[in-house]
């Protein structure tokens, strides 16, 4: 019975993780850029929800609608202005660039929001859902379902829309896409915008569950790494599978080894998977 409860916890976590990782994976897979900012974007989205809730009484789930376009625009602009200049540079330089930007953003958030932990408390609370012996808090369940819905939307966008298909085409073969008349530069910016959008939109969801602090992004970033390695790069289903796998591993890991070791465990998993399958569990011929 306990097993089912842990499994349910894992699935709920996994849905959220899929949402966190899908944008990160897209950027990595299409642009071959690791966006270290991704974790801080999530946190910033969380702050947006927190203040919209505290000051204006906006329900955090609704602030997704504010966060998504804002972050898309910010990501698009950032890519166009800075990151595009380094897109073909060695790994070390692109990684350092987003790392430097992330340090700036973290410092900015520290100044703007102080280091205090904020907790977004839903009012009224949504209670719990009992399915036989398995108990799930409704707010978590709702956040998870919304996260899956967002991830699904991204999937639809990539597979159905014209611009989404252009993104996929660039991921498959940059040169061929350029020859076919796709503006690769623009698609790069769109991709980064979409990645930022997914981060910003998952922020409010996570804020209803975890406390927010300026430096919390590192943890989310770490999880996004692990998920990409588990699920392979650049595909939404990969992020989905990787996210759910990580959620379940973490839940059982917390049970067996104690919750304080969940992150270590997932990092060990990451190293082991990389050693066995250097391009990720589901990865085909991957980007380096």
């Amino acid at each position: 019975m306990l097993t089912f409860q842990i499994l349910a916890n894992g699935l709920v976590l996994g849905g959220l993780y899929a949402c966190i990782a899908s944008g990160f994976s897209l950027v990595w897979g299409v642009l071959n850029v690791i966006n270290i900012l991704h974790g801080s974007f999530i946190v910033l989205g969380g702050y947006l929800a927190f203040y919209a809730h505290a000051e204006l009484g906006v329900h955090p789930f609704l602030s997704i609608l504010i966060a998504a376009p804002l972050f898309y625009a910010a990501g698009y602009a950032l890519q166009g202005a800075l990151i595009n200049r380094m897109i073909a540079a060695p790994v070390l330089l692109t990684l350092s660039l987003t790392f430097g930007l992330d340090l700036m953003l973290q410092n900015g958030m520290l100044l703007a929001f102080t280091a205090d932990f904020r907790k977004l408390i839903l009012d009224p609370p949504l209670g719990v859902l009992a399915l036989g012996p398995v108990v799930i808090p409704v707010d978590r369940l709702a956040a998870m379902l919304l996260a899956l819905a967002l991830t699904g939307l991204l999937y639809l966008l990539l597979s159905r829309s014209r611009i989404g298909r252009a993104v996929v085409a660039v991921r498959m073969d940059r040169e061929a896409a350029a020859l076919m008349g796709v503006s690769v530069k623009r698609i790069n910016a769109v991709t980064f915008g979409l990645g930022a959008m997914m981060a910003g939109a998952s922020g409010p969801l996570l804020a209803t569950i975890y406390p927010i602090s300026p430096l919390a992004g590192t943890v989310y970033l770490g999880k996004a790494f692990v998920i990409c390695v588990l699920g392979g790069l650049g595909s939404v289903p990969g992020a989905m599978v990787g996210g759910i796998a990580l959620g379940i591993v973490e839940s059982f890991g917390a049970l067996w080894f104690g919750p304080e070791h969940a992150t270590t465990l997932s990092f060990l998993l990451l190293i082991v998977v990389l050693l066995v399958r250097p391009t990720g569990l589901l990865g085909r011929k991957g980007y380096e």
Partner: protein
Amino acid sequence: MKQGVLTGLALLAILCALPLGVDSYWLRLGTTMLMYGVLAMSWNFIGGMAGYPSFASAAFFGLGAYAGAVAQKFGLSMFIAWSLAGVVAAMFAAALGFALLRLRGHYFAIASLVVAEVLREIVNSATDLTGGGKGLNLPVPQMASIDDQARFFYYAMLGVAVLAFSAVFATQRSRLGFGLRCIRQNESAADMLGVNVTLYKVNAFILSGVFVGIAGAVYASWVHYIEPPDVFDVLYSVKAIVMVLLGGAGTLYGPLVGAVLFLSLEELVWRNYISVHTGMLGLLIVLLVLFLPKGILAFRPGRA
């Protein structure tokens, strides 16, 4: 060659004379500069010469610090503890290198980044040995005055820096250095020309770990007290990279120049704008990547 030796000796003479007649503030700064120099020169082996974007410096530093501290807790003398820290870091680097250096690009970068996090958690959990999150106190060496102590650690760090520098110097003039240059430019071609690439990369990784491990142990003794988030700080890895980028990767003096420049900037910001310290570091990195990706020495004809 001869000129290089002379430059090196002159530099050494200046560094030896530096502590005479300065106050403890400057001594602290000098010791930190040497420590940064060790970090940068060491990263240069794996990042600059072999071209692998390693973020493992923090792991070696923390491991060395804890190895030295734990050894002294068990009653070993300070110098033996420091040497032991070097051995532990080297062995760890060898094992890690065999495993991780098969990865390329981002995957290698991330795996190496994660190592420090894992080590930190392990040290955090091994409470009996390491004191866990409460940290570990180290014995304070018996000396006449605080200034003597500061001077002692300055010279200790200088010793580590000289070791690291000699290793860079020797490597650049050896088969190993030549092989690493081949690997950086085209690894599979190097392989097919007879370079034992795995062995060479692992050697570079060991060299990038051993002096950092010793420096970590010296640092631990210097500050008398360490805790996991302090010595396993990812910023050690990042700073090492920034300093090398600043000074020029793969060169002999570049990392040292980078260390001096970086520390000056850091100190300037620390003293005047402490609340935006990390943000300024970030800005420095961004500007560096965008405008000086080859380092400032690259502007000179005839790189050192």
